[in-house]
């Protein structure tokens, strides 16, 4: 499909209809990529921790469709989607999972540490809350340089109880830094429900303590995500300040590959599967006459083909040479 629908880094450049199909296509790409990765993990081709995003696709895809190509993006360890939506190739992502040098972090980072400098994707960070001050720093740099680019920082609902969250929020609000903190509230931090972890009833309320504007978005609705984030970014570009967006979503898989997710009911999971961001958006596009089943199948086939191709590419990629072990400890001598 890249023939008709390229992976466009700046979706705002696409004409209206293609822009919408592009949202659907990106969600499909991410889902099929992760389904493939999940299989590979079970076959022990992937090591360490692997956290899947399945169910949450509308958040990253919608939010990043609202961003500009030169905006800075940073996220936590459930990061495959953000890097793909930002324009990295499935090949580079799959190869990273297999720990090979053609991976997006040269096989040195793994699932939790995807980086893609060319697409202004600043990681993949695995210490909960640890990347929020970094987001403030990215935003600080653009303000320092007088640029109107914004920073989009994704975080889980679990991160809102970390000290670093509060320090980053205060600093960003105090210094009016153009950073949009997008909390992906999927109700759980590992096995702990957000209601057992946060003192506030609504995640978005956290912004109040910092006089930071906030909005709540339907994280299962890709258009709503896109439009909410777009509104925030427009305001931030005019006059730099931070924004907090709570995206309400759900993850269908366990926290990581080893988690059977016994802390939630089947009914709850089923309820959210009825709101599947891909199936829902497909239905909307069908009903609006913007998509037909043939076209959908075409997009889905392409997403599956690229995922399978990425796995082949990853498996055929050469191993990291042992001599590279010390290459990236300091910048001198590192290939960059």
């Amino acid at each position: 499909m890249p023939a008709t629908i390229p992976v466009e880094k700046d979706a705002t450049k696409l004409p209206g209809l293609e822009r919408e199909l592009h949202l659907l296509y990106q969600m499909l790409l991410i889902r099929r990529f992760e389904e493939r990765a999940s299989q590979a993990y079970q076959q022990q081709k992937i090591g360490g921790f692997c956290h899947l995003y399945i169910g949450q696709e509308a958040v990253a895809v919608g939010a990043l469709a609202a961003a500009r190509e030169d905006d800075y993006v940073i996220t936590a360890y459930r990061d495959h989607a953000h890097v793909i939506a930002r324009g990295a190739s499935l090949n580079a992502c799959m190869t990273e999972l297999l720990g090979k040098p053609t991976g997006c972090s040269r096989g040195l980072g793994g699932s939790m540490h995807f980086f893609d400098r060319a697409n202004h994707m600043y990681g993949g960070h695995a210490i909960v809350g640890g990347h929020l001050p970094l987001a403030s720093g990215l935003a600080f740099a653009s303000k320092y340089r007088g640029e109107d680019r914004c920073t989009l920082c994704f975080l889980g609902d679990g991160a809102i109880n970390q000290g670093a969250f509060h320090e980053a929020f205060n600093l960003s609000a105090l210094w009016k830094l153009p950073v949009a903190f997008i909390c992906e509230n999927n109700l759980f931090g590992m096995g702990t429900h957000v209601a057992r972890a946060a003192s506030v009833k609504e995640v978005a309320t956290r912004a109040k303590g910092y006089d930071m504007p906030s909005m709540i978005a339907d994280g299962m609705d890709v258009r709503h995500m896109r439009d909410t984030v777009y509104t925030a970014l427009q305001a931030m570009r005019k006059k730099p300040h931070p924004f907090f967006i709570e995206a309400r979503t759900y993850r269908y898989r366990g926290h990581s590959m080893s988690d059977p997710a016994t802390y939630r009911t089947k009914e709850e999971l089923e309820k959210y599967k009825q709101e599947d961001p891909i199936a829902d958006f497909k239905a909307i596009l069908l009903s609006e006459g913007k998509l037909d089943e043939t076209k959908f199948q075409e997009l889905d086939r392409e997403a599956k083909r690229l995922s399978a191709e990425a796995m082949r590419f990853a498996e055929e990629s050469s191993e990291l040479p042992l001599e590279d072990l010390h290459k990236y400890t300091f910048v001198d001598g590192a290939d960059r």
Partner: protein
Amino acid sequence: MREISYRQALNEAMEEEMMRDPDVFLIGEEVAEYNGAYKVSQGLLEKFGPKRVLDTPISEAGFAGLGIGAAMVGLRPIVEFMTFSFSLVAFDQVVNNAPNMLTMSGGQFNIPIVFRGPNGPAHQLGATHSHATEPLYSNFPGLKVAVPATPRDAKGLLKTAIRDDNPVLVLESELLYNIAGPIEDKEVELLIPLGKAELKREGVDVTIICYAQTVRMALAAAEYLAKQGIQAEVLDLRSIKPLDRETIISSVSKTHRCVIAEQNKPFCGIGAEIAFQVQREIFDELDAPVLRVAQEEVPMPYNERLEAAVLPSQEKIIEAVYQVCYL
């Protein structure tokens, strides 16, 4: 005697101490309803209820500090870090508040607290999740640091730690949770003192000093070396602080050669301190420079082969032994 897993041993230690003393409680991420990220606290919520087994938000600095505060007024918290890599978020609490309080208050406030959880590299978890924190914590006077390698030591050291009136860190290992080993029956009160190394294997040619993850490597190396005619003595430190200087010195005085197998990065690592102590005490007894087998000096790579190259191993220990034996 019976056999239980390292995980089960830690679980028994907490259960027994919580039965014995109502002031002991367990706090940490996922310790209650999830039964622990690594299932070490399995069943404790059921036995002791939510008052004494508490799930926290992901707020390491908060709950570590809360534990220290509670300890100031006489409770005896067991604080579980999901891994010690995450304890770094609470570093100030652990290294500033816990060990300094007694001195700063002129002896008024002691802090009877245990910080425990898996420490050191596991498997392909990458740079942020693979920290071996023992050199960090060992650098702060006022903290004790236990590093059990077997189920028996895990139980005995943790029980002792919980009864200690000072802050104690029990550095466990994800890679050891599943290993099984012999241990006294439940009816026997098993307390193992901090600061007593254990001679795991007698030998005359070289002393291999090890702890936690490296004990199994050292024993396997010694087994192999025995077949080559080298009798290695294997010494498991069991706690880094206090350090059992006496046993180390007496073993090396006997073998005249010393290899230290440590799971941390080399620079300012545990072996650096031990090598210093050995040369300071028994310089004339040494027939070769002390050698250390540690990690490579790099942030941990995700790639499996590179990770293996970074870590200490049986092979690297054997190689070091050959070197100190001039073979």
